[in-house]
């Protein structure tokens, strides 16, 4: 359907610079309003809006289709699927739509099942294996389509692509998943179940996220309306819910955690279902998550970032796709770009980038050039558009503040350097005596004790997180406010005499004991600048009951020593000369992670908090240490 009204408006409002069709790369669309960009899109694309694409069970998913006016079809197709209100196209989606259409792609935006104008019942990530598959089949069969389809998107619009990649649809030629953590179920060492858990500890982010996105009592338009009527309604009614504002900083403290949503008066919904699942619950297999036994069928260009929710699982999945791809071509065509920004903030890459409070220098990277080169390569068959010689891993080294590349992750040149947690028994706070040393501890070195009070948890400042209603501001931030606490153990190396480049997976191994049957252990890697600023590099956490795996909960005997191995942190950081390496250990990282109340029962439904006396052991027999992958 041609939107003549918008077209007329475009003639008046489109800036001349766009009308003269300057090269795509030279244009900075961010300076234009959504309104101007919509006019631009209407200028170059035929728009068919709110089409119901039929799924195998008869449910229709509402879909906007933007077909190039220029050029002769059929065209390759780029599919963007979303749970958000993007039918009235705006923001990043709008900018990608313009770029895609300009380069001769049909751009398709589809709402997930159960959202806005799509029929059916919502579930996280939709049903990628059936809805995704059926959508690809439908698109491949349309007259405008040349049968080659790529999928593109960030966050929710990336995560659904993962399970779809396991389906190996013949039309699914390539994909660009950006910041796709919440689509990863169990892969390798990570069993995060779509970022619901890290180390068996629930993340808080889904609570505010689901409050806004999950909407079981949603408004819908009547079924059976024809497409023009649906498109007309969509133009003036978004069907978007505007829920009452919640003070999440307060609400996130509600106990028991399972009642956080119902306490707001919300009807039973996705949160209630998922909070009841343990990390090993087989029910996680029923949703749209990608698990490592599903196979990988699609060449992929991955965009990840150091300060995202789940850079560890992201890179584990990248390696998995390179190893488990269905054929050599798929295995060979996995490329990763890792930026120093927060979740989906690739548009921030440029000169003078500050992430959180840390200056990352010039982080410029031609993200759009890579994306559309990739699609030209796979959807149009232009092999030069994305040369095979492109490094498989392009990553930004923080500290050196420079892009680097390697044929694999981690770089093969990495060697492991072990730093032991050491002290004379008083590593409490940065005013304590904790040291990080390559020397092993003696047999009689005393451990470090602290009291973990769940009602006074250690707060999150920066780090990797997203989408959490503002309760955590992600990014690089000074941790000294935290390290001043007596319930935070702080182990710091001597100042480095030469720079140390740590690039890869960072493993911590702790020998612990507790007065409680269950508690958590949170580990953080910190880069201490010569002026004392303590930049967070990464963090991880492990719930003691899952220390030996997620299929069995093993409570602890009081004061018995156990070994825990949290899932690795993942980074590329050059600790500069004069900097110090620091490791923090404590038992909470709140509100990023839901608190362990130390009772040993069902953590979601408990509300009685018990103070735990926890200890990190570091004698010769029970050493605690961190393994740093050091590259030259």
């Amino acid at each position, binding site marked *: 359907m041609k939107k003549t009204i918008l077209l007329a408006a475009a003639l008046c409002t489109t800036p001349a610079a766009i009308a003269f069709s300057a090269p795509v790369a030279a244009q900075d669309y961010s300076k234009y309003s959504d309104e101007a960009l919509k006019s631009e899109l209407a200028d170059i694309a035929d728009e068919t809006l709110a089409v119901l694409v039929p799924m195998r069970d008869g449910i229709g998913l509402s879909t906007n289709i933007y077909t190039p006016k220029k050029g002769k079809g059929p065209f390759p197709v780029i599919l963007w699927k979303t749970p958000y209100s993007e039918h009235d196209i705006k923001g990043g989606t709008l900018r990608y739509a313009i770029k895609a259409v300009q380069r001769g792609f049909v751009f398709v935006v589809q709402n997930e099942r159960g959202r806005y104008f799509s029929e059916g019942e919502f579930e996280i990530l939709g049903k990628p294996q059936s809805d995704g598959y059926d959508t690809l089949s439908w698109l491949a069969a349309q007259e405008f389509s040349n049968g080659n389809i790529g999928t593109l998107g960030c966050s929710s619009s990336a995560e659904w692509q993962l399970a779809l990649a396991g389906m190996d649809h013949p039309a699914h030629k390539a994909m660009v998943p950006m910041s796709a953590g919440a689509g990863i179920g169990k892969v390798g060492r990570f069993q995060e179940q779509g970022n619901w858990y890290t180390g068996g500890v629930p993340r808080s982010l889904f609570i505010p996220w689901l409050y806004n996105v999950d909407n079981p009592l949603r408004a819908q338009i009547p079924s059976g309306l024809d497409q023009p009527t649906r498109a007309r309604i969509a133009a003036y009614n978004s069907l978007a819910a505007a829920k009452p504002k919640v003070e999440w900083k*307060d609400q996130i403290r509600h106990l028991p955690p399972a009642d956080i949503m119902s306490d707001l008066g919300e009807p039973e919904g996705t949160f209630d279902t998922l909070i009841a699942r343990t990390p090993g619950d087989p029910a996680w297999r029923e949703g749209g998550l990608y698990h490592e036994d599903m196979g990988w069928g699609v060449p992929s260009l991955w965009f990840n970032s150091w300060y995202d929710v789940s850079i560890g699982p992201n890179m584990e999945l990248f390696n998995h796709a390179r190893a488990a791809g269905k054929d050599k071509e798929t295995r060979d065509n996995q490329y990763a770009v890792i930026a120093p920004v927060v979740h989906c903030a690739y548009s921030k890459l440029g000169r003078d980038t500050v992430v959180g409070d840390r200056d990352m220098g010039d982080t410029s990277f031609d993200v759009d050039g890579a994306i559309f080169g990739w699609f030209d390569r796979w959807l149009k068959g232009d092999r030069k558009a994305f040369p095979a010689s492109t490094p498989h891993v392009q990553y930004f080294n923080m500290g050196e503040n420079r892009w680097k590349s390697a044929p694999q992750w981690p770089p093969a040149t990495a060697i492991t350097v072990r730093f032991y947690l050491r002290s004379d028994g008083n590593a409490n706070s940065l005013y304590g005596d904790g040291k990080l040393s390559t020397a092993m501890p003696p047999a009689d070195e005393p451990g470090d004790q602290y009291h973990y009070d769940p009602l006074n948890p250690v707060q999150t400042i920066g780090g990797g997180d997203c989408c959490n209603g503002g309760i955590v*501001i992600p990014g690089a931030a000074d941790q000294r406010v935290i390290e001043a606490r007596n319930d935070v153990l702080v182990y710091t190396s001597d100042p480095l005499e030469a720079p140390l480049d740590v690039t890869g997976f960072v493993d911590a191994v702790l020998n612990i004991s507790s007065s409680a049957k269950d508690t958590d252990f949170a580990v953080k890697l910190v880069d201490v600048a010569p002026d004392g600023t303590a930049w967070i590099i990464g963090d991880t956490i492990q719930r003691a009951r899952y220390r030996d795996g997620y299929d069995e909960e093993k409570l602890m005997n009081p004061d018995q020593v156990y070994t825990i191995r949290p899932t690795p942190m993942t980074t590329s950081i050059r600790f500069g000369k004069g900097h110090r390496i620091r490791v923090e250990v404590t038992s909470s990282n709140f509100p990023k992670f839901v608190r362990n109340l130390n009772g040993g029962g069902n953590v979601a439904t408990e509300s009685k908090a018990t103070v735990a006396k926890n200890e990190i052991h570091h004698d010769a027999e029970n050493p605690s240490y961190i393994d740093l992958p050091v590259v030259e």
Partner: protein
Amino acid sequence: MNFLRHRLAGNPFFRLVATVAAALALSFASLAPLLAASAAAPATEQAAPATFASEDYAGEDVMIPMRDGVRLHAQIWRPAPSDAELPIIMMRSPYGFSKERIADALQQGGSYGYLAADGYIFVFQDIRGRFSSEGEYVTLRPRKSTAGGIDESTDTYDSIDWLVRNLPENNGKAAVMGVSYGGWTAAMATIDPHPALKAVSSQASPEDMFIGDDFAHNGAFRLDYAWSWVTALESDGKTMKPFQFGSEDGYDWYLRQSDLATLDEQHLGRKVPSWQNFVEHKDYDDYWKRSRPSHMMPAKVAVPNLIVAGWYDQEDFYGPLEIYKNQEKGDEDGLNYLVVGPWNHGGWRGEGASYGPFELGSATGTYFRSEVELPWFQYWLKGEGTLDQPEALVFETGSNQWQRLASWPIREKAVSRNLYLRSGGKLSFEPPQAGEAPAATFVSDPANPVPYRERSDIKPFMTKGSTWSTWLADDQSSFASRNDVLFWESDPLPADVTISGDVAAKLFASTTGNDADWVVKLLDVYPADEQTPAELRGRQRMIANDVFRGRYYKSYENPEPLEPGAVLGYDIDLHYASHVFKKGHRIAVQVQSSWFPLINRNPQTWVPNILQAKAADYKVQTHSIYHTPDNASAISVTVAESAN
């Protein structure tokens, strides 16, 4: 759009809407009382309620000539049509008054709704040099130095004189009221008052900007407040334009500033007058003393004054209490009254049913406006009703009860007792014994100052989304976990403990450096059991607090370096409290040496002027707080028999 606003928008009298409205589009509730009105009146987008007796107020812009020829702009709002002679209530402020906000405030449910419904002529005046008023603006302008000079009291006098002569159908009686800066101008109105001035209500007025109010407490500089406030006020005179930090992380931003004395030139490329005054007047000199209203107000109280303060006023709590205390000395005729409620700065202009997570048991702000403030002006300006006003109307927190008191502080049924800081982190009414550990020690590192709130909550205070106005409700428990915060806690209380009146700390302390700040907080610790709501469990609630800058140990006028290692007994005024610590709660005390960026960092070495300290001047020091029989650090409280 409501009826009233619609009507006003078409009123040809208003010619100045653009600048004024633009200025007041700010979210600036903590400073300007009229602005607070909008939060209290969520229904104002609807049609004007039919029960609004006077139906409508109409406004008019006037320029009022002062004795020196300068003309001050004011808006005159009066009920229309008006056939009775009405008294005048004037408010004088530097913040600008937006017509939209006034319209909201005068409606039923608005912050001035009760007064408006009763019928007064409201005058909103921009003080000299601000917004549409002519002349030069001087922050807290001192008294005139010559007989023919001008100051805020002469401007008030001249304004009242013009109003009673020129406004039709006025009854010849006027009042001045206001909050914050407006409270200060209300206090200044009582100096050489115009005969028509029959009453004032000075609400949350600052008294002493060096000792206890906005810019410094006991010589310790209130960094974020002072910087944010003066840069917003002292720009072009016609706007309130907050400084653009380029970051929401106020803690990080301020920590990165190394040369505070030149902050204005570094970031604005110009000198900001008050900022340079802060640099120049580093100690307690006449610059600070000359703006203290209670030292200028007549010793014998002649104009009835309803003084209002809020327990949780994060800006001016010291001021109203100090003005009340000083005026009380000359209140032979019983015209000096005090109200202290459970409010933040200007909180009585809203509903006042809660503060942060703490429910207050009733709509305390609504109560004040309808049952206290309205009868006050009815009595003095209209001669209506009787004045059923106790000497001091004080809200007791914890029990959530108003108390009608014959004096403040109370003199009967109260005894001063010491809460001793004891070894092992114990807080006790029993003094320390010989043989206990003599001191508690901590390292104070200016590079890692104790934040005054959880760091993620520290937005610069005028920044959008800042929750500055409720920061005193913050849970203080996370700070108690810090190695550089000392913490003493009582056993769970076997019965309620009620305190009412003075709170002060006697802190025996030493430092390895030549200067140190001492921050003391008195806290109510909620139980951790499951009967307590989750958000209050284990919560440490602020009851009283303040900071003292060590160099002023002997004199605020002539600071001296501290002798390293010397044990000095500091007297730190924690002001007042009226609070019930409930059975099962604990009483606790925190002591620390930084409170950032509420207070600028103390270098902990001797520099003549801390605002001129360089990065290298800031040194780590070790501090000790003593609790021996001879040096028994303690918090003195006045324990009362509960009135309930």
